[in-house]
């Protein structure tokens, strides 16, 4: 359904162009789920925003192709793209407060999507908005539909955002850190809701998060990004049980465990390079415990490590070949 091929995204800065996403390729079938993880600055959100072409056009340069049902979204005229946004592909963001208009009721905001894409009149849109609120398990939806965003809690607002996103039964939902601003118990509720809706509507979901634990629970396949590049692409279970790229491994080990006492946490030394200031060779080499002299000179490419499993690490690939 979705095919991303050699996507690169560059942004204009004072001194020229910097590449924030570098040759990213992946595919996503219908009714499936994909997680994109990485630290801030890894390019995960930029990749997701590119799918809907939500970057400021003047200052962005995108190359490659993003095919949705065979149509290249990067070359689609703006008008056709606008029909697709919200109808076939919807997106929810981290902060529901900043994504909602404070002076419109939630019913009006959900209704807007319905009026634009499905041509409903105001009254039908209003009653359908209430049904959608009911669908995202907001108690007492009939009266909540006339509430303003400030009258709702953070969790309720995120439910409203989800109601807007699923209003047209999209085939793809992109969720960019949808629960980061929420409390743990509410986060668990929202994730369960998304999982149920995915079944009900039969949509595919791309979940973007820095939280490996969250992604593990939700998706079938995981992409790990570092400094704009894909470093590992594997089924969720494989990545959490046997991560192959040293960066994925480090990310997993750095998560504090709620289930055991630790004297010190494992921390990946150093920090992610700024875009445009990546070191030569492998971008992760300066922080990597396995790095060898060759890693700092030649940039590695993404290669097959196992069935449905790609990594960008020659050291680990060589180790695997040596001991099959």
């Amino acid at each position, binding site marked *: 359904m979705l095919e991303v091929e050699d996507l690169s995204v560059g942004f204009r800065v004072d001194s020229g162009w910097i590449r924030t996403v570098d040759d990213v390729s992946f595919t996503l079938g219908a009714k499936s789920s994909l997680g994109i993880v990485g*630290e*801030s600055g890894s390019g995960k959100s930029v990749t997701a925003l590119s799918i809907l072409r939500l970057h400021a056009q003047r200052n962005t340069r995108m190359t490659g192709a993003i095919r949705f049902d065979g149509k290249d979204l990067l070359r689609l005229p703006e008008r056709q793209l606008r029909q697709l946004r919200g109808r076939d592909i919807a997106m929810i963001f981290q902060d529901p407060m900043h994504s909602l208009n404070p002076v419109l009721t939630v019913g009006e905001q959900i209704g807007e999507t319905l009026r634009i894409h499905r041509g409903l009149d105001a009254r039908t849109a209003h009653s359908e908005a209430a049904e959608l609120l009911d669908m995202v398990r907001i108690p007492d939806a009939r009266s909540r539909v006339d509430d303003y965003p400030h009258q709702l*809690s*953070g*969790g*309720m607002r995120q439910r409203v955002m989800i109601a807007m996103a699923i209003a047209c039964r999209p085939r793809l939902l992109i969720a960019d850190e949808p629960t980061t601003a929420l*409390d*743990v*118990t*509410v*986060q*668990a*509720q929202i*994730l*369960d809701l998304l999982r149920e809706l995915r079944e009900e509507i039969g949509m595919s979901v791309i979940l973007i998060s*820095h*939280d*490996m*634990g*969250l992604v*593990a*629970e939700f998706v079938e396949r995981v992409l790990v990004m570092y400094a704009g590049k894909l470093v590992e692409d594997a089924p*969720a*279970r494989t990545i*959490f049980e046997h991560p192959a790229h040293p960066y994925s491994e*480090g*990310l*997993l080990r*750095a*998560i*504090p*465990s*709620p*289930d*055991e*006492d*630790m*004297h*010190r*946490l*494992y*921390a*990946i*030394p150093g*920090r992610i390079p700024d875009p445009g200031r990546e070191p030569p060779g492998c971008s992760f080499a300066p922080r990597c415990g396995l790095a060898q002299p060759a890693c700092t000179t030649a940039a590695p490419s993404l290669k097959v490590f196992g069935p449905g499993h790609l990594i960008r690490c020659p050291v680990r690939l060589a180790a695997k070949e040596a001991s099959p």
Partner: protein
Amino acid sequence: MMDSPLVKIPVTQAPIIRVRELRRDFGGGLRGRQVLRAVNDVTFDVMPGETLGLVGESGSGKSTIGRMLVGLLPATSGSVELFGETITGRGGHRALARVRHKLQFVFQDPHSAMNPRMRISDVIAEPIDVRGGWSRRDRADRVAQLLDLVGLPNDFADRFPHEFSGGQRQRIIIARALALDPSFIVCDEAVAALDVSMQAQIINLLLDLQERLGLSYLFIAHDLAVVRAVSTRIAVLYAGEIVEIAPRRALYDDPKHPYTRALLAAIPRPQVGTRKPPIRGEVPSLLNRLSGCSLCPRCPDAFDRCRVEAPTLREIAPGRKVACHLHDGVLP
């Protein structure tokens, strides 16, 4: 796994902080607005060299407690005693002035905690400049020493905040907090804004500093896994009240309060598909407090008594307290 050496500090020592029936209301007053009780009769101690973790969801009152503890916010009633000085009530201001240099605060957002136009050396030396009485030479030496303590290179001193990443800025903030050799630091969501790998680095730094300098922390956070990594004891807050307080291992391995259990169950774990269904509902409004237990409408174990009578915090084992009728010895 090895236990932190901090746990072995003898319990016979006197607490450095005593909080008794601390309460904070917002609203009310002459205009007759509704009263919101953000913190309701909270009592705890902090021992020298220990870290007390304070966990709870938004609206649980954890930050309000942290602010009252260092005198940033006056208490409505109850008392806070720091190093033997009572900083609440009459004479509290003068008492606070005597102990203020021993207290520090580290906030969540390192970006808004520094003046963007100050050089790092001036940011770090701010507490020194406020206190006064340091020669220029001593001041510069102290800044260099502090940068070294938090693992930053010396040449950062002449640069500006915008040149640094979130993790580096948080190190700078910690260096500033250490400038006057405090004994007690309140860390309010100090690692919440950081990525996992940065988070682990900062947590390790806080633990190293504690060992080297004998610091005590009040570590406020919503993330239970992070709290486990740093705390000696943990207090769980719900709707402004402590519902459970216990040593680290006891709390995580054998949680007693239904809310503590719900919080632990809600943590996403990097094992595929293992979680139980989450607790229903959200934190209640603090404007109209319920007559019974605040958790009652969400609690899977609630029975009749919970709806009418608020439970009190009782000791159920040495060093371990729970506010729940289930642990009263009188079961339904």
